[in-house]
């Protein structure tokens, strides 16, 4: 990559040398005054509402007929840099998962922008792969979908299966994924996504489903990804796993950024506020 760009003339003497693109410290995700608004269709939802109501909606083509707006993220700004692992904390419904989905480009911002380096990969609990296919096929297809060459997939296949721990209790990898427990499926999905180096990896509660051995493997893998100068975001309700895996934490409440700083400090403050 090109040499470091000159820092601004007014930079304070204490400021570290500005990182060049691709180096640790270079920004990978810039969230700029982001607002995300969900439009929830009428309480009865997409399929219901009775035939006549649905027909009326379809005919009048009113998008927001009976829709409620949920302002899930309100004016959040921060910059994430290479080599950082950032924990997102906050109570249920505080906008953590919405923020991740917006960073992944799966939700359009109402206003504000999200800039990312490359395509972030979002790993969520609900992200089912292909349930009617075997675990084996899911591994191969997942890797090919991420842009690996067939030779690379063959090379990494065993590592992925070992990492997931799916075959620890017998030959499960050749069974369809619909026969897996939710924990097994989540582990396999994480193993597939973690097989590639990501510039930005977004993990939504995926680690909570694994047993201790799997958690240890994934924490190690997250560290490796950070060392390769990627950025990892982690949403978790386990304050311990945020402390253990992250060096920085962002605390959201009602869609607003409450605090952003070193993981230990932010988790302390969060715990203090929820103690009573």
């Amino acid at each position: 990559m090109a040499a470091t760009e000159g820092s601004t003339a007014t930079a304070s003497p204490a400021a570290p040398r500005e990182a060049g693109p691709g180096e640790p410290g270079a920004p990978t995700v810039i969230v700029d005054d982001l607002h995300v608004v969900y439009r929830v269709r009428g309480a009865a939802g997409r399929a219901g509402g009775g035939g006549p109501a649905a027909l009326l909606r379809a005919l009048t083509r009113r998008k927001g007929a009976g829709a409620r707006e949920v302002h899930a993220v309100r004016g959040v700004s921060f910059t994430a840099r290479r080599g950082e692992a950032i924990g997102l904390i906050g109570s249920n419904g505080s906008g953590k998962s919405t923020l991740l989905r917006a960073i992944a480009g799966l939700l359009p911002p109402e206003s504000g922008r999200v800039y990312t380096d490359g395509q972030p990969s979002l790993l969520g609990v609900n992200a089912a792969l292909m349930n009617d296919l075997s675990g084996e096929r899911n591994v191969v297809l997942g890797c090919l979908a991420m842009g690996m060459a067939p030779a690379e997939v063959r090379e990494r296949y065993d590592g992925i299966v070992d990492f997931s721990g799916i075959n620890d209790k017998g030959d499960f990898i050749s069974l369809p994924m619909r026969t897996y427990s939710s924990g097994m499926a989540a582990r396999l999905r994480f193993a597939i996504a973690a097989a590639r180096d990501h510039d930005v990896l977004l993990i939504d509660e995926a680690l909570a489903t694994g047993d201790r051995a799997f958690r240890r493997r994934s924490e190690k893998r997250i560290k490796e990804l950070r060392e390769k100068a990627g950025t990892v975001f982690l949403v978790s309700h386990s304050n311990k796993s945020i402390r253990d895996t992250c060096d920085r934490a962002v605390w959201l409440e009602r869609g607003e950024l409450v605090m952003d700083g070193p993981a230990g400090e932010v988790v302390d403050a969060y715990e203090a506020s929820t103690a009573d």
Partner: protein
Amino acid sequence: MSTPEPSAAAAAPPRPEPSAAELAARYGLKASGARPRLGRYLADVWRHRHFIDAFARARASAKYSRANLGRLWEVGTPLLNAAVYYLIFGLLLQTDRGVEDFVPFLVTGVFVFTFTQATVLAGVRAVSGNLGLIRALHFPRASLPIALAVVQVRQMAVTMGVLLVIVMATGQVPQWNWLLALPALLLQSLFNTGLALAFARLGAKVSDLAQLMPFVMRTWMYASGVMYSIAVMAAHAPAAVRVLLDLNPAALYIDLMRFALIDSFTAADLPPYAWGTASAWAAAVLVAGFVYFWKAEESYGRD
């Protein structure tokens, strides 16, 4: 620290920060979820050709995985299809007016139309039926309708084997002319892929389309001369109707296949400029379908 205050990020010491847009531009960051340019998108799809191939194979093998006879249905389905149409249109309704070699005529029509029909119906669900995959992994979404079109191309290869057997069993003799089936199939495959792409986008936005499309496709089939000769039925129709019927791409691909395989179906039975019109349809629908699908690339999988 019971009353938290927003504190600056540890990694960003106080300094006059450039605006977010400036910073993003300096480090080459792109707005999240933006759609790549068409050329890059095409290259990206090409880079995912192994994924397309593997996805098509996986879908094909999963399709009959719960049936006892498994992939025998790849042969059984077209055979039964042909038998049902022969029973109804050949024996009960006798739509064979003015058609020599009615059995190969009918079976060719059914099989060729089913090829397009199955591809469109698969395309409608290409995005809406794979939301889990779309939300979990990033890849060019056009891979999905293309892969499902490939599944149908492979099914059609099997179906063609059945068709050739039926055609020979009804007295046609293999000859070099049969090779014309290949360009006809190629053109139809390209046409189908374009349709699958277009309907994948429509099906992603309009969830009721999956319920509606079977009726649309059936109507199209009845208008395409699958079980009757358009030339005979529309002999006294106004010229404008005749031109429209001759331009119908499904009828064109059916007639080209009949022309290739059936002796009594000669060039005189083909609409004027059949090969040219069929090629134009294939090119136009493929390009338009791809561009139309790409235009909404960033929206697939969003709520």
